[in-house]
């Protein structure tokens, strides 16, 4: 029987306050990845398995939630492998600043011997320069269990990102500090410094290391690419030689709007805070995505057109223009303007998020609107805008020879 008491009421109120005030752009996306994964860990026999990974995400205006889990078929039995539950709350940007709270519970699974669970919480302050760049400072704490780490792991760091064309470049610096149980002497039998000893005379040592990582996310048409590379700073007692450097790459190729091929490979450094060794891995599989169309009344549909990430018009012949719109996860995109006598024209989908129409548009100034999934007509992003006289706005297109 659930009893109302002060802590539970406070939690409920806090949860309600964290709910997005405007769920205008909320969407739920589900994905299922099925394929093969192989990994090799030093000192262990390489393992391969078939994997099934469901992924569920909720992305609201200020709140994001995600749940992801993997099951591996190794031989004749299924093993519960990697899993992650995470959530974040972000404040709106004011004076270029925004705050973000994140929490996650995760399970890292390499094989039946090398696995670990952890909960973590983190806070970030973002400095947003523009929609094409920003930086952040972060601090957090993680608590792994069933490992030699006896304290929480303190995390502190900073990062910066910038968008260059279709690519997003990110650089991060993260420092990890924790106390762990260690041998009183190292492999050469030299005595090590202990900050304390346990009841059974085991050594407690302060450990810390810092990771510097650069990553690139690139999207063009049906292809998404991710690549990371990093370097770990720290002394030899905390950083093994096989974990100084790492790199990984992953590619998603959308064959249709809902089906993609996924391939990736790389090297993960060890995670001494979680007792996990370094490993090489590779994966190949198919991903099936579900982008449920929102029904009228559930979410304001006019918000969908505002989710257009890119709009472009390019010459395609004499008085013929190719109009392109980039937006994913929608069923239809229409365009209309004075050049169509304000008759809606359905755009054709080419690839996962590219919609296109060839239209006769003469040189000069034109007015244009687009709409998504039969919602409200909005000016395309990036076009000069004016009020249309009907409580809406219209984009102004200047077409030159």
């Amino acid at each position, binding site marked *: 029987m659930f009893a109302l008491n002060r802590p539970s009421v406070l939690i409920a109120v806090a949860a309600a306050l964290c709910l997005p005030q405007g769920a205008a752009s909320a969407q739920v996306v589900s994905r299922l990845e099925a394929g093969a994964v192989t990994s090799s860990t030093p000192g262990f026999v390489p393992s391969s398995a078939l994997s099934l990974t469901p992924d569920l995400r909720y992305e609201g205006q200020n709140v994001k939630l995600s749940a992801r889990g993997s099951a591996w078929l190794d031989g004749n039995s299924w093993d519960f492998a990697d899993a992650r539950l995470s959530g974040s709350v972000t404040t709106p*940007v*004011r*004076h*270029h*600043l925004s705050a973000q709270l994140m929490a996650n519970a995760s399970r890292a699974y390499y094989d039946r011997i090398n696995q670990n669970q952890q909960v973590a919480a983190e806070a970030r302050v973002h400095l*947003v*320069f*523009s*929609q*094409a760049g920003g930086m952040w400072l972060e601090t957090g704490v993680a608590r792994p269990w069933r490992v030699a780490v006896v304290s929480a792991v303190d995390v502190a760091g900073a990062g910066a990102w910038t968008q260059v064309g279709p690519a997003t470049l990110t650089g991060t610096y993260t420092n990890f500090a924790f106390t762990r149980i260690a041998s009183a002497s190292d492999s050469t039998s030299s005595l090590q410094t202990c900050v304390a000893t346990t009841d059974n005379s085991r050594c407690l040592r302060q450990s810390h290391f810092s990771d510097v990582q650069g990553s690139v996310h690139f999207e063009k048409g049906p292809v998404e690419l991710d690549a990371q590379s990093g370097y770990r700073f720290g002394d030899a007692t905390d950083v093994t030689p096989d974990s100084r450097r790492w790199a990984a790459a992953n590619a998603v190729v959308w064959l249709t709007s809902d089906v993609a091929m996924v391939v990736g490979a790389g090297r993960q450094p060890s995670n001494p805070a979680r007792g996990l060794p370094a490993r090489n891995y590779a994966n190949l599989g198919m991903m099936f995505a579900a982008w449920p169309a929102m029904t009228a009344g559930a979410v304001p549909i006019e918000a969908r057109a505002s989710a257009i990430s890119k709009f472009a018009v390019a010459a395609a012949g004499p008085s013929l223009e190719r109009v392109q719109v980039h937006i994913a996860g929608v069923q239809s995109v229409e365009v*209309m303007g*004075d050049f169509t*006598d*304000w*008759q*809606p024209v359905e755009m054709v989908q080419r690839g996962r998020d590219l919609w296109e129409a060839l239209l006769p548009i003469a040189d*000069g*100034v034109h*007015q244009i609107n687009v709409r998504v999934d039969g919602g409200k*007509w909005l000016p395309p*992003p*990036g*076009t*000069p*805008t*004016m*009020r*249309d*006289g*009907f409580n*809406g*706005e*219209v984009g*102004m297109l*200047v077409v*030159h020879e």
Partner: protein
Amino acid sequence: MKRLAGRRGLVALIALAAAAPSLFAQGPDPLAKLDTAGRALVRSLVDSARAEGLPSEPVLSKAQEGVAKHAPNPAIARAVRTVFLSLRQARNTLGPKASRDELTAAAAALQAGIPASALADLRASGHGKSITVPLVVLADLVTRGVPRDMASHTILQLWMGGAGDADLLGLPKAVEQDIVSGAAPGDALVNRARTIPIRLPPAKVPE
């Protein structure tokens, strides 16, 4: 009598057969969804625009837009009337040599609240260049909340400083980005305007 009636009937039938292709060839009237008064208003304004040498397509287009957006008839009538009056005021301000695009853009700027004097200043400093793009950008900036005087003054300064169409067309998106990031619209315009280089033509070499 019978022969006369038969002949008349035949003539009518032939006339109908001749007219049928053209009748069927006519597409649906784009103003069919307007009420009788609305259609009459639009047609009279289109005729007036033609008679005054103004572009009539924007007038008809605004009515078509209203129909497509399911606007109520009074709103369509009001919008169409506004477009016509704006075009007329644009012609009076920019002069008879203004191009169709300039008139359309000027009408948009006037509808956004830009005073006619600002349009005249742009025309006077245009050195014969088309002022279509500055007018389009002006209308956008005011729509985004930039104070009218600040928008007019800044665009005029940029125009006089030799800013090109590409420079000006990049302003709306850049200003929007800054507004999204928390800047006041006026501050956003001032900051972005500073990044546009001055491109005055080189001074003539003195003899």
